[in-house]
């Protein structure tokens, strides 16, 4: 073992920076200077916007007449029409978080718009709008201030317009629910009546704007129904699988069963004879590394999805499997464990862990593992493309309509395949039947574009569930080795932890052979416990499948290990796990992220500190809500487990209650989660996300596993990739949101990470059985 670099302990690095006045400051809107807004809107009017009117009976696709080029559009995100209708751009994708409702409400609040008069316009992919990758639990964090600033710009200009019209001082005019009121005379004028004047005004500099103080917020922090709710419950909501372009064909594709494989030969005679089958099109394999490109294979294009599917199944194909053809995940899992047992690459250290472990009386060792997991979004990946070419075959226009989390990645990847500039690819976004990270990767959009270019008509690609599970961007298989020592006072004196799993970066970087720093920081190198001797390492692992990010990403395996291991240490020390974890977290303090070499998801640690006090707070609250102290008196077969973590800049603690029958039947009657993600925009949606996160985490913990033999995924549908149903989902999920004025942090993924360790700790409390290898389905939980 190499000698640990001497690094300061957490205690030494505690800092207490002054938090900047982040939430009271508008953010720069520099894009306004470089873009002609009118041009932008006029441009978008030409069929590039997907309009889904809030409350309208049917979502309307790109109706050029709907965008009034004479409207008042002071910012990319908002325009106001003569009739008073306010159009707000939703530029993030709706996959179930409620973001299409939440972010526009932030803008509407600051604008003082009447929510009833707001229409939501789903944006096309456009880098002028900023980041559109709806991923990483970033939407509110990235755009809360942007939306408020845009709203404040429009409101300020309307106030100025009213002042001009009345010939009064602007400081006496204020906006209130879609009108401007003159304070002294109580004159009122509606937004729509002001846009003639407002359009002639200079856009105010952001330092001249005043944002509404928190106590005046009307929509932020207050619930409203999803803008798509009516459409969803009447079946009118349009997802990627429902997207239709005139004259489209439907395609289903046979892809190489092994990543990197190719078609050696194929026979489509039988497929061609089937009714409805129109064309058989070979697709080339990706070039270089997989990235977000198509896997290749043979596509069957037909007049209906079913015909295409039948045609696909009638193909006879001989595959060349390529270098991953021998991949066996069981063998690989063993190799990962062996690697985790050996010294690795040190990412963070404190004190002298080697010596501390050697000198300790009580040393605990444990090895944890999590298998490959699949996203299994309820809607598979689907897209329709319309590509037009000139006589020479050069692509002239390309339109994609897709369930995508990342329309700009669609532009880039499809653009490359079509040999055109990404910004020239028109990408409209439908609703997503969930995504969980899978739909950030637009391989399916590239397939649709290639087929449409070939067939000179729109082609819609549907992935079957089997396609979805066999050709996913899988969550990494992993092994984590932990060693720890506790002294007679019950304190942790040393902690060594080694994480080994293929990196997501292997998708795009040939030389990548170990977890990247940002992956390790998801629960591993950001270990919050105040331990004097610490070694956090990673080990080498190659990727033999397409490894991708799945909701909560590396927190899945790393917080599973950390949250279970500290429970093991607590029991070794003979202490109550809740008290033990609380003590191990140490003093209330903020970690010095720079000194610890932590990137903090590129967030400013003054705005998003790693605050141990907040972590301890959610831990205490969850324990309190669950009446934790009863844990010691529960009968055998019942147990509570606890775990906490910071993920996606938010803080969670879970207490999970389990019942295990003597025969080993597990049920999860109750779950408590306390969450602190700072300022909350849509409380009910946060509750819903945390409920869903517990259920998804329970699915993965209990059954989640994709195995590979000969490079082929062995699971193909919900019969062998099981997920929780009503009867086995956690029954009662009590969500407790900490009221906070801190900057908004993540939510969607934040609710996942501390669930699974709490569940496994509860199983230990109930049965005395330690779960170190997921999923639970392989464990006999029976007791007597």
């Amino acid at each position: 073992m190499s000698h640990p670099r001497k690094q300061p302990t957490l205690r030494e690095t505690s800092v207490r920076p002054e938090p900047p006045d982040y939430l009271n400051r508008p953010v720069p809107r520099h894009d306004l200077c470089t873009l002609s807004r009118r041009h932008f809107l006029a441009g978008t009017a030409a069929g590039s916007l997907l309009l889904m009117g809030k409350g309208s009976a049917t979502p309307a696709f790109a109706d050029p007449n709907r965008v009034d080029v004479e409207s008042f559009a002071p910012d990319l995100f908002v325009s106001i029409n003569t009739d008073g209708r306010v159009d707000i751009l939703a530029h993030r994708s709706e996959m179930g978080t409620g973001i299409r409702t939440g972010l526009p409400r932030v803008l509407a609040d600051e604008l003082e718009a009447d929510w009833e008069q707001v229409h939501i316009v789903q944006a096309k992919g456009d880098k002028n709008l900023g980041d559109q990758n709806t991923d990483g639990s970033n939407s509110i964090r990235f755009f809360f201030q942007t939306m408020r600033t845009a709203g404040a710009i429009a409101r300020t200009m309307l106030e100025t317009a009213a002042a001009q019209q009345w010939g009064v001082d602007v400081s006496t005019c204020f906006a209130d629910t879609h009108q401007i009121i003159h304070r002294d005379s109580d004159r009122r004028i509606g937004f729509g009546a002001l846009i003639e004047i407002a359009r002639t005004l200079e856009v105010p500099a952001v330092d001249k704007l005043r944002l509404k103080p928190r106590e005046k917020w009307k929509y932020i922090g207050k619930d409203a129904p999803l803008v798509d709710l009516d459409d969803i419950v009447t079946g009118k909501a349009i997802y990627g699988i429902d997207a239709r372009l005139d004259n489209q064909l439907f395609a289903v594709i046979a892809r190489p069963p092994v990543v990197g494989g190719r078609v050696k030969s194929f026979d489509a005679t039988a497929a061609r004879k089937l009714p409805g089958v129109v064309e058989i099109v070979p697709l080339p394999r990706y070039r270089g590394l997989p990235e977000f490109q198509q896997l290749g294979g043979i596509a069957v294009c037909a007049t209906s999805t079913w015909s295409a599917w039948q045609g696909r199944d009638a193909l006879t194909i001989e595959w060349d499997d390529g270098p991953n053809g021998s991949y066996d995940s069981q063998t690989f899992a063993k190799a990962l464990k062996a690697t985790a047992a050996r010294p690795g690459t040190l990412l963070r250290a404190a004190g002298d862990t080697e010596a501390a472990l050697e000198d300790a009386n009580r040393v605990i060792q444990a090895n944890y593992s999590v298998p490959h997991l699949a996203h299994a979004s309820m809607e598979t990946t689907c897209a329709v493309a319309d590509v037009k070419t000139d006589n020479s075959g050069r692509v002239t226009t390309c339109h994609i309509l897709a369930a995508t989390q990342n329309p700009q990645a669609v532009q880039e990847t499809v653009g490359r395949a079509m040999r055109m500039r990404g910004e020239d690819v028109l990408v409209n976004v439908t609703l997503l039947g969930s995504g969980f990270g899978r739909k950030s990767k637009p391989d399916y959009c590239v397939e649709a574009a290639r087929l449409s270019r070939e067939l000179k008509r729109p082609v819609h690609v549907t992935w079957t569930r089997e396609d979805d599970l066999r050709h996913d961007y899988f969550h990494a298989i992993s092994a984590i080795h932990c060693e720890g020592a506790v002294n007679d006072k019950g304190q942790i004196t040393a902690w060594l932890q080694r994480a080994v799993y293929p990196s997501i970066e292997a998708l795009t970087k040939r030389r990548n052979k170990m977890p990247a720093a940002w992956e390790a920081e998801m629960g591993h190198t950001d270990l919050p416990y105040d331990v004097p001797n610490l070694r956090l390492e990673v080990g080498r692992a190659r990727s033999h499948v397409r490894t991708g990010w799945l909701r909560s990403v590396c927190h899945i395996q790393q917080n599973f290990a950390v949250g279970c291991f500290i429970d093991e240490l607590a029991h070794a020390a003979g202490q109550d796990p809740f008290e033990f974890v609380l003590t191990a977290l140490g003093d209330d303090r903020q970690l010095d992220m720079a000194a610890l070499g932590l990137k903090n998801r590129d967030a400013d640690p003054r705005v998003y500190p790693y605050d141990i006090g907040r972590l301890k707070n959610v831990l205490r609250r969850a324990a309190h809500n669950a009446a934790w102290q009863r844990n010691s008196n529960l009968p055998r077969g019942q147990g509570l487990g606890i775990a906490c973590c910071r993920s996606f800049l938010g803080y969670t603690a879970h207490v999970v209650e389990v019942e295990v029958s003597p025969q080993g039947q597990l049920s999860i009657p109750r779950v408590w989660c306390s969450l602190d993600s700072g300022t909350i925009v849509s409380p009910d949606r946060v509750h819903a996300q945390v409920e869903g996160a517990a259920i998804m985490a329970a699915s993965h913990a209990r059954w989640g596993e994709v195995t590979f033999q000969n490079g082929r995924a062995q699971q193909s549908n919900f019969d062998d990739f099981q997920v929780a149903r009503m009867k086995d989902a956690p029954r009662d999920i009590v969500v407790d949101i900490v009221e906070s004025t801190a900057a908004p942090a993540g939510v969607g993924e934040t609710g996942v990470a501390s669930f699974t360790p709490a569940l496994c700790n509860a199983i230990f409390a109930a049965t005395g059985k330690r779960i170190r290898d997921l999923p639970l389905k392989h464990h006999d939980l029976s007791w007597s």
Partner: protein
Amino acid sequence: MTRINVNGEAHELVDVADTTPLLWILRDHLGLTGTKYGCGVSECGACTVHIDGAARQSCVTTLSEVGDAQVVTIEGLSADGSHPVQKAWKQHSVPQCGYCQVGQMMAAAAMLRDNTSPSDADIDESMWNICRCGTYPRIRAAVKTAAQELRK
């Protein structure tokens, strides 16, 4: 040519094999895309419709099996989203992504037709549809609310 009755209307299908699953007829031939595909093998319930009033998985029900039975899809459950199940779904803000919810509501509506006082065990048994977003606690609550209205 085959006839099929959907939402009270007769449709004529030309050149469709009678082994074609009802799901794809609804979606691709009749343009009724409210009914969703999730698994194709009767595992997820996303494609649930009513056939002569009973909940059936349209992904494994062929055109010939439908025969002259009455098919009702979400588009025909109510004219305006006013079915007690739809109202309860809105009241409890059940949907997250919403994709599974049509199947969930069709399953709930069929169950409640036979049983307006479902126990938790009844709900567990009838509501086996998968929701990957994890809306089960709200579905359970909404089913109970809808049941209450139906008992009135």
